[in-house]
């Protein structure tokens, strides 16, 4: 049995100030089990009184080797693992992976499937932002918002259950389309949700936006400039609160996002409050996209009919010999994409979620790597928290909206 090696102070000596060595400042552990770290994140803090001198994030507690595991599964079966990365954006993870696979093999997705994907991805964005709002407000001691947010989130999860049979880990988006067409109740369920949610968002804003206690905790905290944010690889609302309007839905539209009319909200302040405002406005923009997508939801197939890569519908298997062969080949051997590497990305609620996929010509991915937004966004935490109080650090962690499953994969 191996001995546990203890990490000595020497190994992190270059990360803390000289004063930590003399005992003038204090080294304090925050987490890994701490309610405001939004998961299992450990922070090693160097504190001068109540002020953060240095902050050293320690991640990897949730590392499950998803990238390694996916290399041993066929392209279709590996998709199931992607749900488990960013558990607040499960649809978006499938979406990114499917876009990468489709790019690799050159699959076309029917317009109806594209529209369904957009609707579900935007619902997921609202759902994720609601969880963020509830927890981030909880971090700065606004208790009541949390329960309201989860009430609306429940409704979105019910829609997910309606279309896929699962509330969170849907795996509904598949390479070449979606699993099956949406049920007839889908439209009514989404419309019901769209009817109530704009008013509810106003209610949340009424609770927080002008609340003096909330403003005290948010204004001018964790400021970063737009230029630095780009150089440090920030994406998503965290970047847009600093000025740049980088949103992949506009930058490189995928799945028909170019047809929808929506704005990319930006702010220039770059503090915790600006990030809050950007996310609130993003929810409204998502509602606009869903409304437009629902209004012109095209009819037609929801899966590509290229049966070399997409399993044929269940109904054909009983009557068509080819369909049976394709079905059998796809679920036993999988398909063989050409040799090469692609990078596909989507705008997840947290920023750019990219999938780097390399094929060696065999039925299993040779290398899968996910460029996850939380990983790069968390990197900036030491920079943002320097010189602030520990209580502000909590607000900053909340404002960059990290999901630890997304970071550790």
């Amino acid at each position, binding site marked *: *049995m*191996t001995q*546990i*090696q203890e*990490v000595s102070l020497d*190994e992190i000596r*270059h*990360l803390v100030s000289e004063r930590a060595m003399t005992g003038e400042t204090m080294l304090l552990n925050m987490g890994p089990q701490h309610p405001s770290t939004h998961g299992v994140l450990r922070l090693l803090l160097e504190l001068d009184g109540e002020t953060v001198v240095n902050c050293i994030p320690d*991640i*990897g507690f949730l*590392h499950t*080797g998803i*990238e*390694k*595991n996916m*290399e*041993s599964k066929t392209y279709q079966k590996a998709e199931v693992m992607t749900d488990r990365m960013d558990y607040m954006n499960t649809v978006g993870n499938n979406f990114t992976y499917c876009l990468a696979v489709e*790019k*690799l093999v*050159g699959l076309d997705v029917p317009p109806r499937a594209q529209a369904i994907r957009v609707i579900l991805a935007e619902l997921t964005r609202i759902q994720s932002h609601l969880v963020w709002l509830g927890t981030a407000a909880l971090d700065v001691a606004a208790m009541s918002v949390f329960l309201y947010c989860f009430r609306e989130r429940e409704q979105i999860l019910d829609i997910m259950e309606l279309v896929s049979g699962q509330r969170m880990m849907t795996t509904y988006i598949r390479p070449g389309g979606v699993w099956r067409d949406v049920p007839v109740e889908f439209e009514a369920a989404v419309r019901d949700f769209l009817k109530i949610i704009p008013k509810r968002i106003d209610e949340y804003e009424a609770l927080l936006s002008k609340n003096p206690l909330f403003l005290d905790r948010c204004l001018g905290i964790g400021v970063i400039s737009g230029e630095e944010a*780009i*150089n*440090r*690889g920030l994406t998503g609302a965290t970047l847009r609160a600093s000025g*740049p309007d*980088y949103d992949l839905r506009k*930058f*490189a539209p995928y799945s028909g996002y170019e047809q929808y009319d929506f704005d990319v909200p930006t702010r220039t302040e770059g503090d915790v409050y600006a990030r809050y405002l950007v996310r609130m406005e993003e929810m409204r923009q998502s509602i606009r996209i869903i409304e437009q997508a629902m209004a012109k939801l095209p009819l037609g197939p929801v899966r590509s009919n290229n049966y070399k890569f997409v399993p044929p519908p269940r109904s054909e298997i009983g009557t068509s010999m080819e369909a049976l062969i394709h079905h059998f080949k796809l679920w036993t051997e999988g398909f063989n994409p*050409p040799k*090469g*590497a*692609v*990078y596909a*990305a989507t705008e997840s609620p947290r920023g*750019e979620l*990219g999938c*780097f996929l*390399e094929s060696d010509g065999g039925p299993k991915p*040779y*290398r899968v*790597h996910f*460029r996850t937004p939380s*990983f*790069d966004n968390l*990197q900036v935490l030491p920079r943002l928290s320097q010189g602030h109080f520990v209580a502000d650090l909590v607000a900053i962690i909340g404002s960059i909206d990290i999901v630890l499953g997304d970071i*550790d*994969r």
Partner: protein
Amino acid sequence: MSEVLQGYQQKLVKAFKAETSEFAGEVTVLVPAEKIIEAARMIRDEFGFDFLVCITAVDYWPEEKPRFHVAYVFRSLSQGLTLQVRAPIPGINPSLASIESVYQNANWQEREVYDMFGIQFEGHSDLRRILMPADWQGHPQRKDYPLGYEEPQYTFNFDDIAARKPAPKE
């Protein structure tokens, strides 16, 4: 492929004797490993690719020369372009210059590549393991690192397997 991107590609080929390839509409430039930092500077300052999207690596074991490709994805937010760069490195003492001084978010990205593939990044300010525990042996994403399985236990062999299962650490 846009003409601007083609121009950049030609410049990289000329300056660093790079090779280019295209697949599924994406351009990849293969830059010699010792030139990666100059290439990164050129890509950021001259071409205006201000955003480093990701760094990852691919292991071509049992191939030895080169065994690894370190892949970079750069993006220019103002021009709307994406460029992929790769640096091939051998399997014995794999090392590469760190581009942390050019793009700050390379810090954690390179730490992850180091952790998963054991590639040393020279000039990196804080090269420690990031996802795996500090005392971990081996680099999990390498192709010669076994995935590891747990044997299924049935009633007839439950005790046998339980006896040789590795015990959890204290």
